[in-house]
Structures are given as C-alpha cells and as structure tokens.
C-alpha cells in the first residue's frame, strides 16, 4: 500500500497583525513600529498516511490540529515544507462547510457538491441519497439560515460522504448532531473505511479514537508529542493532559480506625505503578486503630480516569468478618491477574462499621496505578476471547 497523504517538514507560522487599516499601517511604518507578532502553529511535522488508514489528531485546544487539517485540505498554505495527496478530497471543517445562508438547502447542496468536485449531472444522481441520509427533506427548500446547527451538520456531512472522496477530513463537527445521527455517521464512516478510503479527523472523544482509528497523532503547540497506535497515543495524552486527580483527595470519618496509607504492590510484594493486564495487583492498606473496634469492614474501590467505578468490594461482601482491630495493622487485597483495560486507576479506601452507621475513615483516591498493554479494547474489561469465524459459503 502506498501513501495517500504525505506530509514533509511541515511548519506553519501565523502572524498576528495589530493594525487592520491602511492608515494604521502607514502610521506605524512611519513611526518605525512593527506591531506584528508571530507564532508557530505547526513545527516540523512529517508523516505518511497510507491508503485506507484512519488517522486521528488529538491534543488540547490551540495545538494545531485544525491548522493541519486545513493545510492538508489546501485551504491555507504552509510556511515551510509541503503536503502531497492524491485523489478527491472532501472536508468537513467547522460548522456549515461553506453553506450560503440565503440559499435553500437544495441550492447549497449543488454549490457545495460542485465545490467538492462533482459535475451537476453527478449531483443530480446523488441528490436523493444525500437528502435521504440527512433526513431533512421537509426543510430542503428553506433557506439554510433558518436551519438549526444540527440540520446544518446533517446536510454538510451528507454531502461530504456522498461525493465519494478518497480522502475525508473531519474536524470536530459531528458532536453537534443528535445521538441517532451521530450513530448513523459513525456507521457511515465504518463503511467508508471498509471501502478503503482514507480518513483524517480531529476528535476530543477518546472512545471514538480507540474505536475508529488505525493511528493517532498527539499535538501540542504545533509539535508532535506522540504518533502511533491509538492506545499508546491515548495513554500519552492522559499522562500529559488529563488532570491528575489525586490532588483533590478528600477524606472523612471519626478516625477511631485511621487509614495510614496504601501501597500498590505486584505479586512479588514490590511496590509498582505500572501493570499489564494479567499481572497480580496487591493493594495493601495500613491502619492504626486507636481504640479497640469490634467487627469493622475494610473496603476498596477502583475508579478510572473519569471517576467511574470499575470495581469495588469490602470484607463484608467477601464474607470475611474481622473480629476486632486494635493498634496498627494491615489489610491486604490481592487481585490475581487483574483483567482491566489500559488506563490510570485510582483507589479509594474505607473502613466502617458493619451496619455502615459509623464511617471510621475514608480516603478518596488514596493510591493510583496504571495499566499499559498496547492492546485496544472498548469498555472496562480486558478479556482475551478467542474468535472463530466459520464461513459456511466457502467451507461448502
């Protein structure tokens, strides 16, 4: 397979001009003042994208994702370096995709599709499909200035996918559509991929990224921080940009039994931060009971990046009763081969009375660890299924 998009030593410098009128310009020239400021939106970017691959660009706002998309689309020119590509390209950049507000939906479809390189005859052929896909037949003869933003995106996406481009560029626009339409778009994108077309899109949704992409590029301030398989790039992204939640730890309780600490250990009892799915993980709580407490319950909860509960248990659930505690001690939770997907996990620890009436001590997100495998999964669990496909047709 060969490259469909080739980016070589690409840099883009923007100039912020502070004098918008001829007068100011002249006055500033005379004064010898130069009020222009420059900054690099992209710096020395190089990569090849092969036919049929889907590339996703992620990064914080202002990292140069949209600029890169626009340069690939030929809308702005790079300062240094170049982009080469082949085949028809369609782009969905920002909202509206170049609709004229005073024209009707129908008229805009014609203008838009011819901008994307279709002849009027081809548009006639696709027109009904475009409208049907967008589901806005009722409004097609209304001026688009009366459209809602969702209707805009529906029509724009519909045109873009029906012109059968070899390359499709999508900026974060689909988020505007409603859930069913987004689903529909995603399905369409999948067909697109199956047909061997090439996609580049900007997304902030890590789920979408993991689900759809063959590779990803993480950009920050115009520099490539990571480029590779989605799972690697996503973990790099999480590392750098998702706030590390442990800073907001909060705790409460009577402290009759005080939690002193939590150690995350591997099966050999060595303290560790990074695990692979299938590794043994030992969560070791150290406590100090200042009085003799009868029948306490120790519990832990494992939370992921976005604070969703991945797993929680306590001694009560497990049918273990602790007769009494007094003084310092250890409560050890051992998880042989932990089957969870890549990500950063936080551990909340609590000790309370069996009836739950008295909270002795609870500390949110006391400890944390990471799981890194390089494999891609959706959801919480790292399972290793075996898959058999029995093709009845060919087996006879």
């Amino acid at each position: 397979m060969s490259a469909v998009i080739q980016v070589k030593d690409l840099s883009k410098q923007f100039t912020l001009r502070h004098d918008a009128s001829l007068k100011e310009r002249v006055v500033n020239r005379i004064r010898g003042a130069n009020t222009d400021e420059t900054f690099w939106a992209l710096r020395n970017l190089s990569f090849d994208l092969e036919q049929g691959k889907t590339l996703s660009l992620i990064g914080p706002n202002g990292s140069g994702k949209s600029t890169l998309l626009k340069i690939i689309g030929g809308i702005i020119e790079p300062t240094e370096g170049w982009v080469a590509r082949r085949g028809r390209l369609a782009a969905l950049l920002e909202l509206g995709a170049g609709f004229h507000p005073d024209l009707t939906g129908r008229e805009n479809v014609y203008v838009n599709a011819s901008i994307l390189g279709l002849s009027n005859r081809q548009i006639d052929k696709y027109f009904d499909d475009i409208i049907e896909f967008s589901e806005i037949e009722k409004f097609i003869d209304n001026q688009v200035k009366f459209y809602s933003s969702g209707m805009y995106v529906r029509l724009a996406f519909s045109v873009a996918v029906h012109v059968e481009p070899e390359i499709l560029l999508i900026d974060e626009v689909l988020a505007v559509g409603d859930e069913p339409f987004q689903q529909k778009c995603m399905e369409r994108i999948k067909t697109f991929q199956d047909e061997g077309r090439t996609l580049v899109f900007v997304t902030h949704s890590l789920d979408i990224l993991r689900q759809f992409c063959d590779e990803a590029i993480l950009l920050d301030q115009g520099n490539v921080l990571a480029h590779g398989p989605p799972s690697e790039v996503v973990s790099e992204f999480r590392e750098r940009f998702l706030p590390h939640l442990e800073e907001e730890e909060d705790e409460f309780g009577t402290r009759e039994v005080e939690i002193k600490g939590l150690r995350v250990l591997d099966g050999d009892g060595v303290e560790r931060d990074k695990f692979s799915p299938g590794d043994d993980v030992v969560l070791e709580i150290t406590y100090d009971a200042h009085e003799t407490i009868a029948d306490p319950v120790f519990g832990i909860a494992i939370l992921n990046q976005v604070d969703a509960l991945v797993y929680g248990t306590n001694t009560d659930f497990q049918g273990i009763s602790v007769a009494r505690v007094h003084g310092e001690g250890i409560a050890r939770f051992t998880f042989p081969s932990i089957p969870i997907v890549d990500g950063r996990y936080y551990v909340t620890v609590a000790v309370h009375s069996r009836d739950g009436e008295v909270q002795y001590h609870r500390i949110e997100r006391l400890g944390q660890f990471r799981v890194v495998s390089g494999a891609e999964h959706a959801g919480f669990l790292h399972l290793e299924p075996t898959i058999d496909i029995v093709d009845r047709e060919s087996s006879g």
Partner: protein
Amino acid sequence: MNAAPSPDNATAARDTSLMRVNEPTRFWRGFVPSVRDVWRYRELLTNLTRLQLKVKYKNSSLGFLWSLARPILLLIVYSLVFSTFLRAGIPYFPIYLFTGLIVWDLFASTQGGATNAIVGNAGLIKKVYFPREILTLSVVGSTLFHFALQFLVLVGVLVVFRYDFLGWNLLLAPIAFVALVLFMTGIAFLFSVANVRYRDVQHIIEVLLLFWFWMTPIVYPADFAISGLGGVSRVLAWAYQLNPMFPIVTAFQRAAYKDMDAVAADGTPVLYQASVQRYLGLLGIVIAFSLFLIWLGQRVFAKAEGNFAQEL
C-alpha cells in the same frame, strides 16, 4: 485492511499520482496551471454565478427587473439634466446615453462586486479548497448576465425609436465587447485582492469609479472633454484618451448611435471623430493591454490567495 472492492472512486486513488497541495509556482510561470485549475472547476463557476444572481434578488419581489430598473432610472435622470436643464442638444440623446451607460454599468458593477468577491465569501474560503479565482470570475459571470438583459433593453429602445442602427458599424460592438470583458476581468482580479488585506480599498474604489465615470464620455460627447481639456493643456487632453474605457465606450457608441455627422447644440460632434481603423487600432491596444492585465492580476491573485483563509 482488506478493502471491499468499491465500484468507482475509492480504487481510483491508486491510479492517480501523489500531487503536492498548493504547489508553489514561480511568479512568471504559474499562469497556465492556474488556468487549467479554473477550467477543471468550470461547473462550480456556473453554479456560483447562478448563486450570485439568486442571492442578489433573494427576498425582493421584483427580482431581475431591478437590474433593468437601475439603468432606466439613471437614463431618466441624466436625460433630464443634460437635455432639459443643460440643453446639450444632442439628437437622440437617450440612445447615445443608454449605450454608454450599460457599458459602464457592466464595468462598474463588476468592480463593485469584485471588491466584495473574496471578503464576502469568507465562509467558503475558510472551509473548502477551490481555485479562488472562481469567485472573481463568478462576479464577472453574473454582471455579464445583467448586461445581457440591459442589452436587450437597448435593442428594444432602438427598435421603439425606429432608430436606424443597422450597418457595418455594428461589427465594432463585438470587438469592443471582447476588449471590455478582458479589461474588466483583469482589473477585477486586482481589486478583489486589494480589498482582502485593507478594507479601506473598497471606499477608495468607490470614489475612483465615480471619478472614472465622469472621465469617460458617457453622458457627454467625447469632444466636449477633449476640446475642453485641450484648452487647458494638450497633455491633459491626451491623458484623457489614455483611459482604456475611452475606446471601449466610444466604439460601442459608434456601433449603436452610428451617425458620425450628428452634432450637439454648439456644433460639437457627438461621436468620437476617428476612422474605423483608428477605433479598431485603439481597441486592439486595449485588448493587448487587458491580456497583460489578466495575466498580472491572476499572478498577484495567486500570490495572495494562500493567505486569504487567514486574512478573513
């Protein structure tokens, strides 16, 4: 990935070769590739021209009639001022005037539209790639359409007045028309680029067009100006005739008004007194100059267009 065989387009990617996006072309060399690029997008040009026409009269009940109403109203005003107030005494003045007026209207409305062609389509420019020249050319397309309507009215007027305009003189019209279209297209490229960076330009152009209008023999006979200016200085009279619109307008007048012997009240000839060869010669110079202008305008345009998306 095991691509399902798709009937037409996806597989086509393999056949076409890798092409550089926005390949920089040298200033002197890039004209031909640009023309080829515009040609590939010719259907877009017709669609955008149609769009311009539709948008212009969207939500107006008289629609296209407005493009006729304007020159007709101007015709009434100027006829009133010149024939009745100033008593210039030009026979068949409305025919003389209307000829110059529609020619000027084509030129002026093209330039007015051109200053707005890029700025007014920021939405398109920021979101999709296509040769930006198409926007300027679509302005030319839509003003030509209006011109065609006005031209029909002129023919109507000639017929209604039972004016004898038939003859060899009419052959000047198509040649003058070619010169006009080429000239206004060249200027339009320059004007549409100029307004992107500094919006002051559109105000300058407005005033410039007004000045230019009066410096072109449209509402008065050419000899009024030439002899008037000649009284001040010969250089001025000569400079007056350097205006590329001068041979264009006078040639149209020669074609429609026809009567070389017609004189105004004070004996000044109405039409520009020159041989047909001279008319043709002047138009030839304008055509050559306009071709140069189109080339220059396109090159300036191409140099600037890379920055359109960020300037808007």
